[in-house]
């Protein structure tokens, strides 16, 4: 109990003193996860829509696999990405290991199935509603996907936020491919893990509260932005 209150106090101190190390870590956390969310959305949202409007032989299987990939253990993803990016691996020459880019790659792999799967479910309902109209208007496959993504954008934002949530709180993969290097690849979660390892529970808790506050802040910002975009809600 005592440690939790200490953690809260520590979080308050960190935030209000605008600790430069903390700001750096927070900025990198945001940079990595937001980039990953944007890239994963660029892949996952059209993929989700594509799976809705296309009938092909292994569609059900593909969707089942996608849903299963939502539970992909980050550590495994991290290990695979590590082996790919390692100097001894196929993409070693790119020299991406232990850089934020490597962390983004790992998170994209973790988040994309989640975003694709959630958006697939959302878009399926919208497609049921639009189906006859879009067929009647002879919309091409690409146009159908575009219409579903655009008109479903509010609901799809939720899918993206879910992806953000999974990314910002993820530690297993980015620890391996990022290396938790101070001033270089240290993010909130890896810092928490490090401080816990040192037995600095109050400090770790403080960082944890900062992480939660950050996640809440991002969610609130996105929601308020998307609501003011159009005056009325439908």
């Amino acid at each position, binding site marked *: 109990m005592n440690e939790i209150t200490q953690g809260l106090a520590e979080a308050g101190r960190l935030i209000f003193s605008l600790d430069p190390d903390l700001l750096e870590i927070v900025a990198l956390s945001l*940079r990595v996860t937001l980039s990953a969310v*944007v890239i994963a959305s*660029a892949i996952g949202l059209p993929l989700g829509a594509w799976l809705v409007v296309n009938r092909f032989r292994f569609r059900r299987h593909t969707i089942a696999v996608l849903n299963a990939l939502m539970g992909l253990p980050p550590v495994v993803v991290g290990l695979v990405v590590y082996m790919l990016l390692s*100097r001894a691996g196929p993409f070693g020459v790119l*020299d991406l290991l232990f850089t934020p880019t490597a962390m983004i790659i790992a998170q994209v792999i973790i988040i994309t199935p989640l975003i694709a799967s959630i958006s697939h479910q959302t878009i399926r309902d919208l497609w049921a509603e639009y189906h006859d109209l879009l067929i009647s208007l002879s919309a091409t496959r690409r146009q159908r996907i575009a219409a579903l993504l655009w008109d479903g954008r509010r609901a799809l934002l939720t899918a993206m936020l879910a992806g953000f949530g999974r990314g910002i709180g993820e530690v297993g993969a980015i620890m391996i491919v990022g290396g938790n290097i*101070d001033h270089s690849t240290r993010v909130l979660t890896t810092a928490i893990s*490090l401080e*816990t390892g*040192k037995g600095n529970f109050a400090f770790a808790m403080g960082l944890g509260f900062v992480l939660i506050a950050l996640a809440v802040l991002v969610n609130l910002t996105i929601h308020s932005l998307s609501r003011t975009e159009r005056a009325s809600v439908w």
Partner: protein
Amino acid sequence: MNLKKTLAAVLAILVYGQIAMADDIRLAVTTSFHNSGLSDVLLPEIKADLDLEVKLLVVGTGQALRLGKAGDVDAILVHSRKAELAFLEGGFGTHRREIMFNDFVLIGPSADPAGIAGVKTAVEALQKIAGAKASFVSRGDDSGTHKKEAMLWQGVKGVGDVPTQGWYRAVGAGMGASLNTASGMNAYIMADRASWLKFGNKGDLTLLFSGDPVLFNQYAYLPVNPELHPHVKKELAVKLENWLAGPKAEKLISDYKIGGELLFTFNAK
């Protein structure tokens, strides 16, 4: 359109964020070295003296050696003589330079149910723990600390090469995480002195045994072989080595104390 702008901004950050400022070098070190806090003292001085940014990868010895073998780091600083020699034999490193040593200590509940406090040797202490079937937490992560511990168990009778009984808990984690586990279970554990002194969650644990020469723990610096990995920063690795073995490092290491206790003994030649 809004999305495009966001995308462009993100890409810009991605690209520009990547540009490094000064020279940098990747050094894989063990958790125990980092947890001691010594790196926080040395790194800023290195930056000031050599204008060299040392990017520390804090991992277990096993992983550090793997990173070196794969050429993912430029040099390693570890403490497991046998594994280091095998590393050199495999041609993965150019040479091995001893820098400093610290020692391992045995930690346990203050009540000391196994009664290891007064014994003469480390093996004897472990024998008592085995005899009392007292809970013992092992790193179990193939780290230098773990390797040293496993070596000591080989001298203990009645447990085989490495204990497999229920009281022996191999947690497969770093020093800090293992200490946390030991603290939670109120169990015995072997730790390096630095990590123990710096550890913030001691609970009922206390230092019970130390001083056996077998517990000395030599740290060595091994640059990765540039013949195997042409991309490694050979000159920077040498520069760093000379600094670590030099007089400035000697003074900083010899002055580094926690609670009045000396953590490392500089012995570079």
